[in-house]
């Protein structure tokens, strides 16, 4: 249904203002009350912003940077930029001036729209190094009245100025008419974990088609409520809060401040909700801690009904048959426990919930699903306008990322890397033809950089690791260290894992215990320890870890493709892997190569069958001094499982 007058976000806005102008488009909590903008009001404001930008001589295709927290006016500014013929470039608001310099310089923005004084100050600081910036617009006037206003404008004044200029209206009209599916909708910078950030150019076709497809997939409609709290510079927020919101015409709610997000979530009760695994994890921890403090009766009731929920909830969500008595118990639990709990979490109305970004722990995932919350996983990236695969209702599992979103084609390369082709595939990386060519081929197939496979019987995609980390073992079977490491890291006792086995005949692992969790356990069981090293080497700790490893081996063995990755031998490291020692990046990702070099003697011991090893390790203290710690580590064998029969049967 690509009607010409729906070929851009501003066109969708006009349609919405016409079809349901009196329905809320935005809400923001301010001064303790939810303030709303209807679609008609939103259109009026967006037009005002567009006219204001024209009064600053905005040229077609010009980049306009937008920095700030999620606020309706900033969303409307993005659409205002589009309406005036420009391209919005939202930036991460918590970026320090240094990081901002690169992006502002790279996109060449002449006009910057900032949320408040903090952001204005940052841009002013950057301006000494970035020559392109000429005009700045701000939203929150606080603290800015005394600034030099020759190149600084408050959004309100700018709108008034734009509306007053009669000669700009025809210009706005012609700019709007020039927009079509092929014109650029937005440019989003990838966060840049690998090298410099890249500006991903997405067209109206990318955004609108993807929004349409994904909305159909989950039957989203005009009645949805969403809470916009994730960074505006992130592609997900752009799709949810602008793409899908404008396509369906649903209301976007903005929290009062970052700190009130949980309260606001509860007040709004979103029907469509997205959160990274970290948020679900924090919420669950809060619930568990508060339950431990609750009275005995409440606690017993909670645990009893949570057991029922674990057994019955996911089955009910998946539409499977459940016995009558279980159904009755679950209904009682809904009244006594699940309902109030979901209400506290602000999730009672969630019809479609998503988590993505990284692997989510199966227990966390199951906890929410057992409460009856339809939490699902999706797999996507900026270059795809988010959606590559999604889980269908009733086909949700913690270990897959679902089937391709309508319109997406998938293929798996020889080395296991996942490629996709879809209406959402980005146009190009801005000013970076080399990277564009390296990522997207002539036929439109895009490399994800992730390795995975499609399950033969269900068609679900499973992501196992970054493609560059995946290797082959000596017998030719697939080696995917992160897949196993993630499984182990879901145990609270285990903080970090490094699995070895590339080119070898078996897999082994280094394990770091989590001092908080294991220390807590030791305290409760009266196990005395004087140091991290002593606790890490305690035989009972080793036995606990061994049990975890063996449990993971069972689940790895179930997987035909990855059964070779079972851990045969492991040791618990005597020190925590630390960024100060160069063993991890500052964002706490293990540097495999450095760990392999530094602990070569330990790896050798894991493979030569010895039962203990003595070692000396250099450590760097926080003040930069260096020291050495000596340790004798016990090496343990873990039970592994045979799966050869199934391979042979094929």
């Amino acid at each position, binding site marked *: 249904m690509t009607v010409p007058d729906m070929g851009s976000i501003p066109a969708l806005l006009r349609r919405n203002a016409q079809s349901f102008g009196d329905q809320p488009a935005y809400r923001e*909590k*301010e*001064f*303790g*009350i939810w303030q709303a903008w209807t679609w008609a009001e939103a259109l009026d404001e967006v037009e005002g912003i567009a006219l204001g930008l024209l009064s600053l001589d905005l040229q077609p295709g010009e980049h306009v940077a937008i920095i700030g927290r999620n606020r309706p006016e900033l969303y409307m500014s993005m659409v205002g930029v589009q309406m005036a013929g420009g391209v919005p470039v939202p930036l991460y608001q918590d970026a320090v001036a240094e990081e901002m310099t690169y992006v502002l310089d790279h996109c060449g923005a002449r006009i910057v729209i900032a949320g408040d004084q903090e952001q204005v100050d940052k841009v002013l600081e950057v301006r000494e190094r970035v020559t392109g910036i000429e005009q700045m617009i701000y939203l929150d006037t*606080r*603290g800015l*009245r*005394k600034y030099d206003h020759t190149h600084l404008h408050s959004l309100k004044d700018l709108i008034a100025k734009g509306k007053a200029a009669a000669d700009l209206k025809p210009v706005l009209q012609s700019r709007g008419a020039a927009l079509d599916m092929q014109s650029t909708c937005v440019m989003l910078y990838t966060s840049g974990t690998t090298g410099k950030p890249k500006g991903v150019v997405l067209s109206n076709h990318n955004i609108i088609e993807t929004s349409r497809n994904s909305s159909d997939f989950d039957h989203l409609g005009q009645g949805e409520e969403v809470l916009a709290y994730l960074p505006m510079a992130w592609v997900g927020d752009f799709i949810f809060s602008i793409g899908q919101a404008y396509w369906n015409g649903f209301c976007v709610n903005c929290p*009062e*401040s970052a*700190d*009130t997000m949980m*309260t606001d979530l509860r007040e709004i009760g979103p029907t469509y909700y997205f959160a990274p695994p970290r948020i679900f994890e924090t919420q669950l921890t809060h619930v568990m801690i508060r339950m431990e403090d609750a009275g005995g009766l409440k606690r017993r009731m909670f645990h009893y009904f949570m057991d029922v929920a674990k057994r019955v909830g996911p089955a009910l969500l998946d539409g499977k048959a459940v016995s009558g008595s279980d159904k009755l118990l679950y209904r009682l639990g809904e009244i006594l426990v699940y309902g109030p709990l979901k209400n506290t979490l602000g999730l009672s109305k969630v019809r479609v919930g998503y988590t993505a970004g990284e692997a989510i722990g199966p227990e966390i995932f199951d906890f929410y699903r057992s409460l009856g919350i339809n939490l699902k996983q999706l797999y996507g990236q900026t270059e795809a306008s988010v959606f590559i695969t999604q889980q269908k209702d009733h086909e949700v599992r913690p270990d897959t990322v679902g089937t391709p979103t309508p319109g997406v084609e998938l293929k798996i390369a020889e080395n296991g890397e996942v490629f996709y082709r879809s209406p959402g595939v980005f146009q190009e990386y801005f000013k970076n033809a080399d990277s564009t060519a390296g990522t997207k081929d002539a036929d439109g197939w895009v490399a994800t950089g992730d390795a995975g496979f499609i399950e033969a019987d269900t068609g679900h995609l499973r992501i196992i690791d970054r493609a560059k980390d995946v290797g082959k073992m000596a017998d030719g079977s697939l080696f995917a260290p992160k897949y196993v490491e993630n499984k182990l890291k879901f145990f609270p006792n285990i903080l970090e894992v490094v699995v070895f086995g590339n080119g070898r005949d078996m897999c082994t692992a280094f394990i770091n215990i989590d001092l908080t969790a294991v220390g807590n356990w030791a305290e409760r069981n009266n196990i005395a320890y004087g140091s991290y090293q002593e606790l890490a080497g305690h035989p009972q700790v080793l036995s606990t870890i061994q049990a975890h490893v063996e449990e993971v081996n069972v689940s790895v063995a179930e997987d035909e493709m990855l059964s070779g990755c079972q851990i045969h031998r492991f040791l618990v490291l005597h020190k925590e892997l630390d960024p100060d020692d160069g063993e991890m990046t500052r964002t706490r990702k293990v540097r495999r190569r450095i760990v392999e070099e530094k602990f070569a003697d330990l790896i050798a011991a894991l493979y030569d069958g010895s039962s203990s090893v003595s070692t000396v390790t250099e450590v760097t203290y926080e003040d930069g001094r260096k020291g050495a710690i000596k340790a004798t580590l016990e090496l343990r064998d873990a039970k592994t499982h045979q799966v050869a029969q199934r391979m042979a049967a094929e």
Partner: protein
Amino acid sequence: MKDTVDSYVTADGRTIGGVMMEMKNITLRFGGVVAIKDISFDIREGEIRAIIGPNGAGKSSMLNVISGFYHPQEGEVWFRGQRRPSMRPYQVARLGIARTFQNIALFEGMSVLDNIMTGRLTQMKSNIIQQAIWWGAAEKEETANRERVERIIDFLEIQAIRKTPVGRLPYGLKKRVELGRALAAEPKLLLLDEPMAGMNVEEKEDMSRYILDVNDEFGTTVALIEHDMGVVMDLSDRVVVMDYGKKIGDGTPDEVRNNQDVIDAYLGVSHD
């Protein structure tokens, strides 16, 4: 230069008006102890005025004289061109003078919102019966007051603790709530008794920003006592220095910094 009564504009663009409050030859005694000895100084409209001095110099006593809590035995207090007679603290509050305390004085069991609402007391005109039955003027008044309080909550960025009982808050936030309550009275003159005592650097920076913003956005005149010299010198337009109940310096931060008496009082002098 600044002894003239005319208003002037500071380097950062703020307008400082004429004299708002003048203390003339104030002497305050507690029994045989002389807390304040013959001190005179003024506070001008729109400025940030600091009172500093070593421990026991009489700073808090001075603030209590301004707020009407202590009545000096000698001397006169002039406010906006009129000699102020001895007043009870609530009468002073109605004049438009609000304060915070060195030791936080909030209602611990009440929410942040309710605590700040108490600051609106001087603005409420409906009587207790109207309020009890929520009728007529009381309802309208409450809405208007709540709106004002919400603006202060927004201004101080404490939305997330709006409904939290004050007793559960950390120290730095309590200080901010207390500032909120003082602001709720819409004061013309705001007295701050050691607003940054016991705070870490980040909290001090936040508080400094709020004080500057209050002065800037609402045009409120601020008189503050503070120990942190860095903060005082950065924030204030003029500084009074006290030592043993006497005034030993008065002027801009730079003038005070170079005043030999002040240096001696802070660093000590050798007696040989």
